């Protein structure tokens, strides 16, 4: 008789080869979706981090002060940086591969593998062929789950990588508990830090967390014998994960608590009402039948003319076969024979699946919508699930697939005849593969950009002229950009250099050049009324329009003449919200009145410079400070008979009872001093170094970034600032301001600002959005000549978090090494 190890070897090899084959096939699938140079780009997160990870890292990922367009705001983006670093590394190593397809291939193969491993770990019967087959079926169903490829793949956001990452969290934990090995917990925590961008997508993470929580509670009470260990490991897991993720948790928490973008997005006024509106308009289109079959509601696709309509007919023709999958779950629940553990697992996961099916559908009977309304009113932050139909699919797919895996195992254990087993397994695989054909063959990847009627998709090759334009803009260094025609939702539009691709998504200007782009509502939204202000200004007077642009720091206009030729369907509705600023005639009129100089032309893109008379430097001393009664719309009346200097700083005072909006109040006039000489340098988006000379009188210093109380001024030594003068970038003689050449510097040493005391200066909102400090020379040690740093303090919280995360990771690595050595010995 052969020794046991030798007998098992061929089977183990077969199993590994079988798994490897599936993983490799899955990895290769995205490479066949489009030609090697095509990238699927566009949408809210633009996916430009896949196209150019280095630029994303350099211009976006590391700073708390960021916005995809318009005036920057407190919007910490650091959660994406570990993943983007990974992408940049992959791009360096696999320079010959399309990095997006590489990332997607890995998502598919790891998604399959993590579900496979988790089901196998749950069943605890690794030498059983039924277990391998069931786990593989679960994994296959997961990566080819129609709801996921209908919702998450057509416009993949950050959450796409959750397909691979979320199930791995479960596997790491279960493996640690089953093997009593803490190293798996550390592994899971490291994965959570590396893919932090999927956790920070809370609306996607919440349904998964709900499912995972129910699983852990029921697993602890019904199955796990060593409950103490499970509880302890869970605590450790959470602790490790939090520690490793502090680099983004601290800035994000600060942003939520102290008025950053995150707080506006989550707890802003009217969120609950908006959420209820969305639910009551979408929910009636949902039905539980499609959800139970793993499909997206047909009424949602056909009734709302979604791009998915193009492939939906195929999928729904097979919905009767898709119904076999829940059928298998229901049938397996009726089987009395079999292992107690399997039966318990089946009940636990069926329950989670059914609960998540509710969250995915909401519209169940009379109670479904009412319960969801109640959840919105009662549970804090439940509003993040307002678009429930697009947030729950990944979590639902995970638990549905695991349930199917367990159910298949339970059924296979009951079937004695090999033939029937084979037919059963083959049938399931055929159902899974047949319904996934549009996904496998790349039809999902090539769906129309906006609705089913548009003959263009998102697979593009960024045209050379676009990169030439952004390179040109990058060299211009100073001032913000306004892309025309203006579109709703910050979106820029340009055609692919070949094929039927169209880029429709967030402005790439920020990513490629580091400059803010005013195009779109998102950029303005946080200062309501700005787009309307621009429209009104345009309709009134060219000088007023130039004045407004100057105040907003807009220096360049990028006019895309290609937009005229786009399909008519794209020019309606949400995309062309501001018709005045989208129509070619009015754009030309704007350009001729405020931007006479055409700097360059690249293909259909024309770059214009706003007339110098309107432009204001990023930091400048105000000649005069005036209080204006009213809100930003009062700017309109400033042109009417009032002599206005562009370097005036305006403080708006909202007083509903005051009559005569937009009229200066006499008592509000504050006289400033003579203009001092100012030299400043941008270190990074959160830090500016400033040197001031000959400041004899107090004056208002305007800093043209959006107001936030955490913009602080810190004193520095004058000698520190001398270097500013070495390299002049731009000079504004009428203001006595010079700007030094800059190169963005990542400065973790600025962690020290947490322990420094900022200067106690009067800090006000200038021009309805910017910062202004009242600078009194006597507050500085050497009067007249002094220097300081304008710094955005929350950036230091990122450095603090990063320090703790790196330190704790290093400690854990040391621990793992010591632990491994000890375990072996």
């Amino acid at each position, binding site marked *: 008789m052969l020794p046991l190890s030798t007998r098992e070897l061929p089977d183990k090899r077969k199993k590994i080869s079988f798994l490897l084959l599936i993983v490799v096939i899955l990895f290769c699938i995205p490479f066949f979706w489009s030609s090697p140079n095509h990238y699927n780009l566009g949408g809210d997160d633009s996916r430009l981090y896949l196209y150019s990870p280095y630029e994303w890292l350099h211009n976006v990922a590391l700073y708390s002060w960021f916005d995809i367009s318009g005036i920057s705001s407190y919007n910490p983006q650091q959660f994406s940086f570990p993943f983007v670093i990974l992408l940049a590394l992959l791009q360096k190593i696999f320079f010959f591969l399309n990095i997006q397809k590489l990332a997607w291939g890995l998502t598919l193969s790891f998604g399959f593998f993590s579900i496979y491993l988790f089901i196998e770990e749950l069943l605890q019967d690794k030498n059983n062929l039924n277990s391998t087959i069931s786990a593989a079926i679960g994994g296959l169903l997961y990566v080819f789950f129609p709801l996921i490829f209908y919702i998450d793949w057509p416009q993949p956001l950050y959450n796409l990588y959750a397909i691979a990452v979320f199930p791995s969290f479960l596997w790491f934990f279960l493996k640690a508990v089953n093997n009593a090995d803490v190293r798996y917990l550390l592994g899971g925590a490291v994965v959570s830090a590396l893919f932090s961008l999927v956790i920070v997508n809370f609306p996607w993470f919440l349904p998964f967390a709900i499912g995972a929580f129910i699983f852990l509670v*029921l697993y602890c*009470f*019904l199955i796990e014998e060593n409950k103490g260990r499970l509880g302890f490991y869970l605590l450790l897991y959470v602790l490790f994960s939090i520690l490793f993720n502090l680099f983004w948790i601290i800035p994000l928490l600060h942003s939520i608590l102290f008025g950053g973008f995150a707080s506006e997005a989550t707890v802003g006024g009217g969120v609950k009402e908006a959420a209820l509106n969305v639910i009551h308009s979408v929910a009636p289109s949902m*039905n*539980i*039948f499609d959800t*139970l079959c793993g499909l997206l509601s*047909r*009424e949602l696709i*056909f009734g709302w*003319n979604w791009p998915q309509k193009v492939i939906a*007919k195929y999928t*729904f023709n097979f*919905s*009767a076969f898709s*119904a076999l999958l*829940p*059928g298998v779950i*229901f*049938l397996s*629940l*009726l089987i009395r024979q079999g292992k107690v553990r399997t039966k*318990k697992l089946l*009940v*636990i996961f*069926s*329950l989670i699946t*059914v609960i998540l*099916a*509710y969250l995915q559908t909401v519209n*169940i*009977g009379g109670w479904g919508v009412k319960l969801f309304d109640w959840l919105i009113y009662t549970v804090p932050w439940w509003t993040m699930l307002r678009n429930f139909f697009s947030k729950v699919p990944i979590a639902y797919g995970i638990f549905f697939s695991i349930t199917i895996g367990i159910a298949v195992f339970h059924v296979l254990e009951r079937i004695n005849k090999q033939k029937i087993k084979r037919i059963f397994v083959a049938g399931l695989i055929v159902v899974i593969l047949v319904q996934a054909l549009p996904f496998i063959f790349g039809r999902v990847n090539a769906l129309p950009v906006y609705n089913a*009627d548009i003959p263009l998709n998102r697979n593009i090759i960024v045209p050379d002229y676009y990169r030439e334009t952004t390179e040109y803009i990058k060299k211009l260094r100073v001032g913000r950009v306004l892309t025309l025609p203006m579109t709703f939702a910050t979106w820029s539009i340009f055609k692919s250099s070949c094929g039927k691709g169209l880029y429709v998504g967030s402005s790439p200007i920020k990513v490629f050049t580091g400059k803010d782009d005013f195009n779109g509502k998102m950029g303005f939204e946080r200062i309501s009324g700005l787009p309307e202000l621009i429209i009104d200004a345009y309709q009134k007077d060219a000088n007023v329009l130039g004045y407004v642009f100057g105040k907003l720091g807009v220096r360049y206009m990028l006019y895309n003449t290609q937009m005229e030729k786009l399909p*008519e*369907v794209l020019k*309606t*509705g949400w995309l*062309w919200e501001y*018709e005045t600023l989208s129509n070619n005639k009015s754009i030309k009129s704007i350009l001729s009145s405020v931007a006479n100089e055409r700097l360059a032309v690249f293909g259909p893109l024309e770059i214009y410079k706003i007339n110098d008379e309107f432009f204001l430097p990023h930091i400048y001393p105000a000649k005069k400070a005036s209080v204006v009664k009213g809100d930003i719309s009062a700017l309109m009346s400033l042109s009417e008979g009032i002599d206005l200097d562009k370097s005036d700083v305006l403080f708006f005072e909202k007083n509903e009872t005051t009559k005569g909006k937009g009229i200066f109040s006499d008592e509000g006039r504050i006289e400033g001093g003579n203009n001092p000489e100012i030299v400043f340098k941008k270190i990074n988006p959160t830090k500016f170094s400033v040197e001031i000379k000959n400041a004899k009188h107090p004056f208002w210093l305007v800093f043209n970034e959006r107001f936030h109380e955490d913009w602080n001024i810190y004193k520095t030594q004058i000698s520190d600032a001398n270097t500013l003068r070495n390299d002049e970038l731009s000079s504004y003689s009428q203001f006595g301001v010079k700007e030094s050449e800059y190169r963005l510097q990542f400065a973790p040493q600025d962690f020290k600002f947490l322990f420094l005391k900022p200067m106690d200066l009067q800090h006000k909102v200038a021009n309805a959005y910017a910062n202004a400090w009242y600078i009194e020379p006597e507050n500085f040690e050497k009067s007249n000549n002094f220097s300081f740093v304008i710094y955005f303090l929350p950036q230091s919280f990122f450095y603090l978090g990063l320090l703790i995360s790196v330190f704790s990771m290093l400690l854990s690595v040391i621990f793992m090494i010591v632990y491994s050595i000890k375990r072996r010995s």
Partner: protein
Amino acid sequence: MINFKKIRDKQLAFLISLIIVLSCFLIADTNLAKKVVSVEREYPVNSESLLKKIPLPIKSDYVVKIKYQSRKMMGAMVWLNQYPLEMRASNVSNKLNVTCYYYAPKDKVMLGDNVFEIKFHGEHPSTVTVRMNNYVAAVADNNIIISLANSVFKNKAWVKLFFFGIILFGCVFWVWRFLVFMGMVLFHESFQRSTFNTALSFSPCTLLFFILSIKSYQGPYLIAISPGYLLLLFVLLTGFTNAVLNLIHVLILRKVFPSIKREYILPTARVEIPPWLIGGGKWFKKRSLADKCIIFCLFVFSCSVFLFMLGVSKWGEPLANVAYTSVLIGISMKLFSLTKK
């Protein structure tokens, strides 16, 4: 010697297959999906008139539905390629939307871009939604189309239809034979009884197709149904009716009226209920309440599958809700019993 019973059975099958095939020939349309046009556009309005181009892929007569979002609009004139469109109906909803229906005749419609002009009386609406359909109504996920008599659906691909007819004939004939056979094997029916039940189960579908074809041929509207849907409808409707009839016969007629000499009414001989049905009943009785909930869910869910397949999701949705609720109860009960143990 000639077996008259079998000949009668085959002749009946042949006759019914012929009626169904002939009816289907009149209402089936093999190119239905390609012919259906439904174009919807939403336009913001800034002035007293709106001029837009709408591309249409097929030259046919169209029903134009225009939704005006306005509180104070007095009326509107609509031109298609400079031809004034006649308003056939209107509907005011929520005091905000006014929906008007127009008819665009085939000879005024152009292949490709069609110029649409709307002039508003009174205050112009903020948005206008134009929807153009080349049919009057579409049901069962666009598998059944009711169109105007002069529509594109009138032209049929006769060669394709001929081949479909042959396939349909074969299907109907063999479904007949299969149901007769299954009645005998599964329900232990006699040949005559099974044939009788099969003939009864074929009648709803035969009648339905026959009436629809007559209506389509003679009425003001044209009915077009996709061949796949016709086949599906036939198989599901007939199969379901047959199963119900056989069950009724086995469970009710034989149990409730055992004394009646059914031989006079129905020429059948055997009385016993099939063993699988008895076994199934016993098995069901033994199951826990949780299992019964899940079995009920399976049954209701299967029914909703058929209804969704037939495109009547309005009926399928409530059934699916019932299935969901019952499985939720079933699983919860199972979990409760597990925690108790």
